[in-house]
């Protein structure tokens, strides 16, 4: 190897004479002693290495690799596991509460729950007969009307004196207003539409009386399925709402 480099590098053989002036230009103008020495060292080494380019051939590499770059997310392990554990414990809490609730739930809870849904609330408005019974599901809150002879009730709304609207039920055959049993809540206000205060008062008294006479306790507090249909009739009979209503 030395032989390859040296002989053509010998100044007097002239082979690399042109290139040595590149080293000269690299050195000049001088900046410092260290820089001059350093430039000379690498400059002459570069010249001496040139003959080796001619007399060497490509050889296998030791290692070759290519790289690919991707943008990734890095998060501390603690943060990830903290989130996972927090979620798991939250789920466990939910399951625990659910089990506790299931264990604590009795018939009363089921009955209340059934009535708190939209079907339960609708039944409380329009299906007092069925709504009071012990029910297993939403379905049983409603009376089946697929048999002949059962009175059909029209559901509507009517104006109230306070300018709002209220539900109004009307018997399909008689056209008389009717309300499901115990639907006292709207009676008073619907009666506002009547022009006579006395009638209203009467109505209120009547309602109170009917409630008492028809076993108010049972109607109000006991979810008894056997609610006599008489109160409805009675109620209708004494209902002050006989004036023309605005059916919508």
């Amino acid at each position, binding site marked *: *190897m*030395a*032989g*390859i*480099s*040296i*002989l*053509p590098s*010998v100044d*007097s053989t002239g*082979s*690399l004479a042109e*290139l*040595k*002036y*590149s080293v*000269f230009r690299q*050195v*000049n103008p001088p900046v*410092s*002693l260290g820089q*001059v*020495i350093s430039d*000379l*060292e*690498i400059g002459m*080494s*570069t010249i*001496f*290495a*040139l*003959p*080796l*380019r*001619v*007399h060497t*051939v*490509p*050889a*296998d*590499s*030791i*290692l*070759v*690799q*290519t*790289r690919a*770059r*991707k*943008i*990734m*997310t*890095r*998060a*501390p392990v603690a*943060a990830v596991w*903290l*989130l996972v554990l*927090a*979620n798991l414990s939250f789920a466990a809490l939910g399951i625990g509460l659910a089990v506790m609730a299931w264990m604590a739930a009795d018939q009363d809870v089921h009955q209340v729950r059934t009535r708190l849904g939209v079907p339960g609330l609708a039944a409380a408005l329009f299906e007092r007969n069925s709504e009071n019974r012990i029910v297993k599901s939403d379905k049983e809150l409603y009376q089946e009307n697929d048999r002949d002879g059962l009175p059909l009730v029209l559901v509507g709304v009517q104006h109230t004196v306070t300018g709002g609207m209220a539900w109004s039920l009307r018997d399909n055959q008689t056209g008389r207003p009717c309300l499901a049993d115990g639907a006292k809540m709207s009676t008073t206000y619907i009666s506002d539409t009547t022009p006579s205060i006395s009638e209203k008062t009467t109505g209120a008294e009547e309602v109170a009386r009917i409630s008492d006479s028809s076993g108010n306790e049972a109607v109000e507090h006991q979810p008894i399925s056997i609610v006599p249909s008489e109160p409805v009739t009675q109620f209708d009979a004494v209902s002050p709402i006989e004036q023309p209503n605005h059916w919508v």
Partner: protein
Amino acid sequence: MHAADGYLHIATEAIELVQVFPQDPAQHQYGRSIDPWCFDDSETIGTVQNKNFWGCSMTTLEYDDELLQVTNKTEFNAVINEGYGQGIMNFTEETGSQYAVVGPTISPSEADWQATSYAVSSQCAPVPATACDIQGNSNVTTDLGTTLVPFDCSIARGSPVDFSGSYMGNTFSYMFFDFHKHLNERGTFSGMEGLDFTPKNEEGSIIPNITKQERAQMFPSTWRWTAAVTLDLDIYLDSLPRDMVGKAWRMEPAYGNYVMVVACNTTGEYPLPRYAARSLFFT
């Protein structure tokens, strides 16, 4: 849970992931090895063009064994024409040692690679003017009238080497002290052409008979040389860098300039054992 989620969001950061795909080293020849032709002495042994004597980069002309010429001339000239430093990679060690490494002919721009190659490294020391007798007013001239400045430097006075000779105004010249067992240059910085053979007049009997086993003794492993560089000072500063005062040679009155003389050792390195284990060529 909100705290854990918040912590995750705050602690999360985007990073660049670098995936590495190993490639078959045999498919990527970024290393260099000596052309096997260099070791084939079968055609030249027994002649004055014996490769075991000359090496494979230069030899004498067949029709005139007084003239030396590079071998593989077409390719050699192509390399020279590419210019200074083409295909040579520079590398500086932590210690400050600089290496000129023979690079691959194909530039692997997209790959990281590691390969063995040849490198040349030089260490130079200044030959201070204070360590030499420099006779700028000797009035000695060559036959052509060029003024010579004889000098004599000694280790005793602080020179890295003992040497003497004559400077004759070359912008930049360098000289090997002992580059071959039987060959040496004529003069010192004198620009004299030709090489001297020692022992004298025994070329014909020695050169053809150098065997393969002897070839390693022909060239030294460390090449000792010296160089004299004319300092082209900045006209506006018109002064030497401070740390070169007393080091650079003032050639007056023969030449009105400063010359920096250095003595150097150069070694060839293969296969760069210290660097093969490191990512020398990683892009």
